[in-house]
């Protein structure tokens, strides 16, 4: 993702091109982030970009993306944090409109920016001095009078000129200077590092700038992190709730069947986001909390009412034999369906209560698709909450149920069918961003590599499978 696009940034060099672009930029600049920080001068300049651009003819065009990496590199070197801070703040000021989410943070930053720019001219220039001797004076000028276009113009002319950057759309530059929204590709690896950083800091205390530091990736800006963090937090809340619910279910299931217990939280793999590593195993250990599930699932109910649950529990034993008769179509076809859709294969299975969870589901953001646990097990009944559990204890007609002893215990044989395993595996491979269903603590990369080398596998991924 390294684009040098610097569209946002780069305008410096493009004295030639300016001309026509200027006007358009001006307009845009207003709404957009500025930053062209190729120079220390610009640092401060950027604060005033709007004004600057208006009067200035330089008109760099955004499309021009050249130079920046080195310049920026320079800039960041000399500018140091201060410049970055300022830049960020400045940027954020502009971005307020664009990102509602970040409003609060941004506003604060905006205030900071003001302060910084006011007081920072000296420091800014100081830090920028490495880059440009005149920066200090320029900076001050700019800072103190935002309308000082002519002055700026001069300055601009001298340097490469900051130009209005319009481009947020095109930006793919990865300068560390904060720029407009850059499209960040949140690969699983990147996300994983992000999550690690966040967890290290503590989710609630995780601040984008610190996360950025911890991640140590140049391509990311604080803003990228900030918005990603926001999404992460909101998803996390939902996932936590769902996890908890799933935990209670899986505990129950475990009690009944013992089978997939260790797998525990079974099906919540539909959690689409980041939470798995955190939610993962520890809070849910069904194995360990055999007796604790009572208190835990009650409050966690997202789907059904406690009363419903109980009645279901009641019903389970009764229904077990009943469930033996379910038609086979349950399994493979339901599995074959895309997970998100909850086709209710066997209405006969379900007691009337089943409707309720479905009814509730839409209301709860946590359950976009009523599919969670069911998908995990062969007995899958893609209905959320209780019904699923119910299904699980039913025998999966596809598996070797008949051999189980008859009687009160539901013949639960959780041997996965090939299709389900294949589907699950395919899912992981095609959607690497899906959260880990169990969230086990990952092994350290080095120790795995060392061990693999010991076994004669020099590198992974291997070139031949």
């Amino acid at each position: 993702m390294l684009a040098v696009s610097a569209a946002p940034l780069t305008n410096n060099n493009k004295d030639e091109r300016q001309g026509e672009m200027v006007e358009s930029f001006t307009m845009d600049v207003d709404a957009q982030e500025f930053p062209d920080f190729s120079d220390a001068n610009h640092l401060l300049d950027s604060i005033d970009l709007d004004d600057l651009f208006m009067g200035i003819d330089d008109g760099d065009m955004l499309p021009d993306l050249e130079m920046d990496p080195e310049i920026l590199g320079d800039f960041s070197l000399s500018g140091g944090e201060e410049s970055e801070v300022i830049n960020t703040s400045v940027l954020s000021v502009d971005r307020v409109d664009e990102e509602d989410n970040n409003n609060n943070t941004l506003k604060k930053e905006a205030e900071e920016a003001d302060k910084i720019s006011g007081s920072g001219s000296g420091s800014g220039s100081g830090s920028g001095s490495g880059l440009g001797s005149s920066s200090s004076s320029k900076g001050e000028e700019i800072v103190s009078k935002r309308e000082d276009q002519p002055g700026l113009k001069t300055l601009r002319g001298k340097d490469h000129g900051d130009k209005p950057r319009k481009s947020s759309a095109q930006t793919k530059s990865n300068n560390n200077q904060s720029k407009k929204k850059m499209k960040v590709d949140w690969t699983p690896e990147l996300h994983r590092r992000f999550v690690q950083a966040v967890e290290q800091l503590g989710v609630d205390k995780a601040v984008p700038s610190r996360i950025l530091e911890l991640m140590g990736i140049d391509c990311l800006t604080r803003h990228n992190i900030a918005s990603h963090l926001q999404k992460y937090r909101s998803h996390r809340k939902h996932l936590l709730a769902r996890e908890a619910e799933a935990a209670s279910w899986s505990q129950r299931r475990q009690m009944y069947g013992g089978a997939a217990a260790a797998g525990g939280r079974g099906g919540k793999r539909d959690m689409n986001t980041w939470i798995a590593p955190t939610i993962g195993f520890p809070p849910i250990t069904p194995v360990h909390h055999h007796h604790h599930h009572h208190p835990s699932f009650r409050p966690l109910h997202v789907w059904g009412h406690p009363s419903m649950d109980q009645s279901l529990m009641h019903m389970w034993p009764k229904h077990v034999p009943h469930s033996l008769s379910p038609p086979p179509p349950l399994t493979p076809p339901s599995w074959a369906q895309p997970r998100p859709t909850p086709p209710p294969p066997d209405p006969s299975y379900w007691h009337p209560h089943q409707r309720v969870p479905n009814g509730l589901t839409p209301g709860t953001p946590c359950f976009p698709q009523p599919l969670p646990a069911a998908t995990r097990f062969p007995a899958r009944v893609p209905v959320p909450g209780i019904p699923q559990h119910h299904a699980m204890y039913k025998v999966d007609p596809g598996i070797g149920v008949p051999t189980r002893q008859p009687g009160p215990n539901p013949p639960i044989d959780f041997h996965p069918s090939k299709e389900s395993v294949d589907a699950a595996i395919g899912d992981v491979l095609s959607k690497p961003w899906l959260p880990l269903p169990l969230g086990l603590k990952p092994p350290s990369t080095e120790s795995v590599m060392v061990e693999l080398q010991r076994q004669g596998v020099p590198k992974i991924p291997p070139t031949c499978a």
Partner: protein
Amino acid sequence: MDDSSASYIHTVHHLIEECLVFNMSKEECMEALSKHANIKPVITSTVWKELEKENREFFEAYTKNRAERGSGMATREKIQNMLSSSTTIRDCKD
């Protein structure tokens, strides 16, 4: 490249977790991953073992449960226990 190794390992880890959800054994997992995801069994087994080291408790319980699951007696006992302990719920319901 370190990065791709790390993410490869992460993928294998993820896949193993999925297998765990299916209550599969290590061997079953090796076979499934090899067949469906083209992952060498030795890699699967190595990552599994490393996971086991990092999550000992979990794996101990998992193994134990799997063993018990094989025996119908244990299952029946569990169910009976569960039924008797479920009286609490019933009471509440009432």
